[in-house]
């Protein structure tokens, strides 16, 4: 360390590389800057959430590493608001959304993509029309409907409007109609009925798209805020987003507690994303656009 000796093996290629791509250094500087801008706030939240109660929050320059790291803010958040309960509610709603969308969209997509029958065009039109209606514009009517059905303030009421999304039906229809016809025809020759062909022949070939539908249904439901905010009034029915919203009112004076709350909320979804990220990107590339 004291006498750094330039090693010719490492120095030479570095110089050559810089000479060959003058733009690439700038490229990595910009990209790193953007990565810091996009991921940095998360790191900062983590740092905030760990800072001891006595540490000054406003310092110049800001300090990233906590001087007296502590986990007390996490336990206080868990103590003051029932985060575990909210997590469970969110999971329940998301699980219903995943099952509803996977089953509903796969079945409907199969009918629209592989079966011939009178009214198919009309059924497809209904899905396209529904796709063009932004959820905000039917919000009030949905609320009145859910209310007259007695589903206000229930977890089922939260999931109902997105139980089967038109977008997913159309995605599945495209997936099924892109399959080669031979397999289906061969199964017809073998005397298989529509249900058998669906389960044994066609569904196994579109598993990838079904996974994408499931993941987007999960994330969409997990992150939904406006609808549960409107339908839920009892605290013990709150989903995680609605419950977290209370952090700002309850702990506005202490950013450390807000930070701890956001970290708790982020851990599950970040793990989920890290494990399944290739499906997220595949979904976007195949047109499975969020929300």
């Amino acid at each position, binding site marked *: 360390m004291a006498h750094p000796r330039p090693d010719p093996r490492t120095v030479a290629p570095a110089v050559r590389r810089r000479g060959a791509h003058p733009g690439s250094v700038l490229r990595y500087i910009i990209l790193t800057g953007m990565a810091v801008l996009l991921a940095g*706030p998360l790191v900062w939240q983590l740092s905030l959430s760990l800072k001891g109660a006595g540490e000054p929050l406003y310092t110049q320059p800001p300090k990233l590493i906590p001087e007296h790291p502590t986990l007390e803010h996490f336990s206080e958040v868990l103590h003051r608001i029932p985060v575990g309960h909210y997590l469970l509610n969110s999971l329940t709603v998301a699980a219903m959304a995943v099952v509803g969308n996977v089953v509903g969209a796969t079945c409907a997509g199969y009918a629209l993509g592989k079966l011939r029958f009178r009214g198919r065009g009309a059924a497809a039109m209904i899905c396209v029309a529904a796709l063009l209606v932004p959820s905000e*514009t039917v919000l009030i009517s949905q609320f009145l409907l859910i209310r007259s059905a007695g589903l206000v303030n229930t977890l089922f009421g939260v999931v*109902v409007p997105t139980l089967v999304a038109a977008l997913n039906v159309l995605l599945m229809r495209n997936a099924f109609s892109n399959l080669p016809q031979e397999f289906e025809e061969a199964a017809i020759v073998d005397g298989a009925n529509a249900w058998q062909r669906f389960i044994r022949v066609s569904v196994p070939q579109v598993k990838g798209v079904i996974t994408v539908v499931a993941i987007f249904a999960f994330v969409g439901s997990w992150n939904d805020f406006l609808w549960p905010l409107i339908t839920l009034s009892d605290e013990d029915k709150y989903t995680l987003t609605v419950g977290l919203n209370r952090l700002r009112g309850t702990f506005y004076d202490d950013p450390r507690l*807000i930070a701890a709350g956001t970290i708790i*909320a982020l851990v599950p979804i970040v793990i989920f994303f890290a494990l399944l990220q290739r499906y997220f990107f595949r979904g976007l590339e195949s047109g499975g656009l969020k929300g």
Partner: protein
Amino acid sequence: MTLSADRGVSLRRGGARPPRRSEAGLATHRWFVTPWLFLLPALTVIVLMVIVPFVNTLGLAFTDSTLLREGEFVGLDNFRRMFDDERFTTALLNSTLYTVCVVPCMMILPLILAALVSGAGRLAGFFRTTMYLPVVMSSVVVGLIWTNMLDKRGLVNELFGTLHMVAEPVPFLSDRWLLLFSAMFVTVWTGLGYYMVIYLAALANIDRSLYDAAAVDGAGVVRTFLNVTVPGVRSTMALISVLSSVAAFRVFGEVYVLTGGTGGIGGGDLTMTMLIQREGTGLQARTGYAGAISLFMFVILGGLLLAQLAMQRKQRTP
């Protein structure tokens, strides 16, 4: 390819049919009921939760209904009242401004990022994942994170103070316009990775030889970007302009959380969706009026879609 496949199918079908004629009749009958059984769950939800509420909104908008009382037909009263309602004009202005400012950012910045990331070799995957991370977070979490960042004692003000850029902390979260622009920044921050991934897929489809030709012609980075990359992703850009303008006009979560649910001081930062939420829910809800605002919003969003479609058609047939 499709043709030969079809022919193969029809041959096989022709060969299989004659011995099973009696069953084929049954099959057609079953074929009529079965498809609708497959469609039943999805169509029930879609019709009940989207189509019916939409038709209801159409009716509601012309009544003076409240949450507790079925209203009467009042013609265009709600729509007349809207333009005298200061909160409505504020919300319309805010949402429009939001769209006008956010959409160009969403069309251009993610494309530049995608171009940089796609050339980053083995690190491309790392950058893509990092930049996509905000996309999977809910607007509430994003809002809370940025509440902390933009607070008077937050990191942004700490950095500004350290660099002696400002004498006093900037009131990002209390000034009407600053709050709106902060929320726009947060929206762009969240959406960058999303649109970047869409652009990455489009970039992969650009013919490599165009880049080689540009290099032979001695075009620089910027020239290549403007003359090869941008024209190569034009249809994706049009798609993103539609998606991001509809999303921006509908903005809710970021503004709601940054204002602590209040819509800013005196409701100065209300957006259209916030106004609908506020008018249409709660015990004092004026559902008829909220329905009229919803319908107005639907017309604007529909207009955005149609305008973009018309623009695309014009581009295709010069």
